[in-house]
């Protein structure tokens, strides 16, 4: 039960699919199911009330005011024929009874379930002060944009993607921006030290004030309004606006007690099927996007990616898994992310590795491609403002080419 096609090849229809999460992964999974041939009842549940929208512009064009809400809407196929439950939160899952429990007590039955509830931003004490923001949702970006209009100095806590892009956007708006991170370089986790340092130099050259390698001690406030951040070394970074960009955690609280294996995300097998506590796939349940921790055979390891491209691609695969069963095969993508900061385009195909080598271009001009190696194998390639050159390494990563490339 719960599989689109039976082993005899006779179509055994999925009658009722519920997709929990109505952002990129959820909507793409829904579209993919219809494309596969699903004609039954399709329900999407999303806790945000907005029509589905795209998140990457929230730290860039939308925040800067050059794009409006209409511009960031996700294009969802008109023929989707689905029941939309937006502004509704899922609070529980009963895999035995095959029901999703919604806030308010309603139970929604399914024979196929896509879990795509994404991730939520980590917060710190002080986040409740006026002038302090996290940035994940459209509402966050609207509020932050409004605050920036009345500010001169912004302090950004966390130099990951969100932090770096917000700092760059603020500099573009003519605001002073201070970037704080516990690691020595921006984007250290995704780029490593050598390449993270290139990113750091770029921010410094664009006038961002860097405080790297130091923890933040406390977000300071006066009369309920943020005044800045005190760092662990005693430095006080004054700011009217503080953005907390210290990462996200997978939104799996609603799955507690559901029988799914939860370990920094929903644990899935290679095919994106959710695994139960016995270590066996739970029939009729798949996961995709920021919260899916699945085994990627291309790299022989479990991974959970917070990349846009992964949400889109994994959603397609998860839908195919739901429809066709395990014979759909493994999800073995070459991961991809991009980040636009100032006039630079930073792109990575694959994953970072312990060994780095610049392969072409000029680091000084910040127009180059660098390869990442692990055990003599090319596992990833990083491009700075070199999209054409960078894309050519995607195939090499997929082919498990040697590192350094010959």
């Amino acid at each position, binding site marked *: 039960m719960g599989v689109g096609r039976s082993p005899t090849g006779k179509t055994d229809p999925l009658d009722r699919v519920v997709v929990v999460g109505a952002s990129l992964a959820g909507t793409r999974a829904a579209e993919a199911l219809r494309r596969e041939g699903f004609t039954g009842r399709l329900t999407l549940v999303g806790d945000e009330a907005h029509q589905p929208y795209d998140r990457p512009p929230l730290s860039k064009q939308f925040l800067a005011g050059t794009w409006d809400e209409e*511009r960031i809407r996700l*294009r969802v196929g008109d023929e989707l024929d689905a029941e939309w439950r937006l502004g509704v939160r899922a609070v529980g899952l009963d895999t035995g009874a095959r029901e999703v429990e919604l806030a308010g007590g309603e139970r929604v039955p399914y024979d196929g379930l896509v879990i795509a509830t994404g991730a939520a931003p980590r917060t710190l004490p002080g986040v409740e002060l006026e002038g302090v923001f996290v940035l994940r949702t459209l509402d966050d970006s609207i509020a932050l944009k409004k605050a920036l209009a009345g500010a001169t100095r912004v302090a950004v806590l966390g130099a990951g993607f969100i932090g770096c892009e917000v700092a760059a956007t603020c500099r573009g708006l003519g605001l002073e921006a201070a970037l704080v991170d516990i690691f020595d370089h921006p984007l250290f986790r995704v780029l490593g030290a050598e390449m993270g340092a290139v990113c750091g130099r770029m921010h410094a050259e664009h006038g961002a004030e860097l405080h790297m390698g130091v923890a933040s001690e406390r977000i300071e406030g006066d009369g309920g309004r943020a005044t800045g951040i005190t760092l662990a070394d005693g430095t006080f970074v004054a700011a009217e606006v503080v953005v907390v960009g210290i990462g996200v955690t997978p939104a799996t609280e609603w799955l507690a007690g559901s029988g799914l294996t939860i370990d920094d995300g929903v644990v899935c097998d290679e095919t994106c099927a959710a695994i139960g506590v016995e270590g066996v796939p739970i029939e009729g349940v798949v996961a995709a996007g920021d919260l899916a921790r699945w085994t990627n055979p291309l790299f022989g390891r479990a991974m959970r990616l917070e990349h846009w*491209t992964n949400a889109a691609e994994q959603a*397609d695969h998860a839908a195919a898994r739901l429809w066709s069963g395990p014979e759909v095969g493994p999800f073995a993508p070459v991961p991809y992310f991009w980040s636009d900061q100032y006039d630079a*385009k930073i792109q990575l195909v694959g994953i970072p590795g312990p060994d780095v080598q610049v392969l072409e271009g000029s680091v000084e001009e910040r127009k180059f491609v660098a390869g990442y190696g692990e055990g003599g194998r090319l596992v990833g390639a990083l491009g700075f403002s070199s999209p054409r050159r*960078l894309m050519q390494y995607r195939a090499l990563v997929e082919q498990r080419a040697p590192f350094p490339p010959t």
Partner: protein
Amino acid sequence: MRVVVDFDACMSNAVCMGLAPEVFEVRDDGFLYVLQEEPPEELRQKVVAAERACPTQAITIED
């Protein structure tokens, strides 16, 4: 079919080029060039894949 690109949304990710190089080319100047605005039907699957994979939703395939 007709390939329409929103060049304001296009951020030259070149994902499209990776999927349908017969139709999409990001050159060394960093700009996207659409090589065939009305590609032949046999390229439909690749071109639709590029439309879906574009990280900034800049591609629309019109029939």
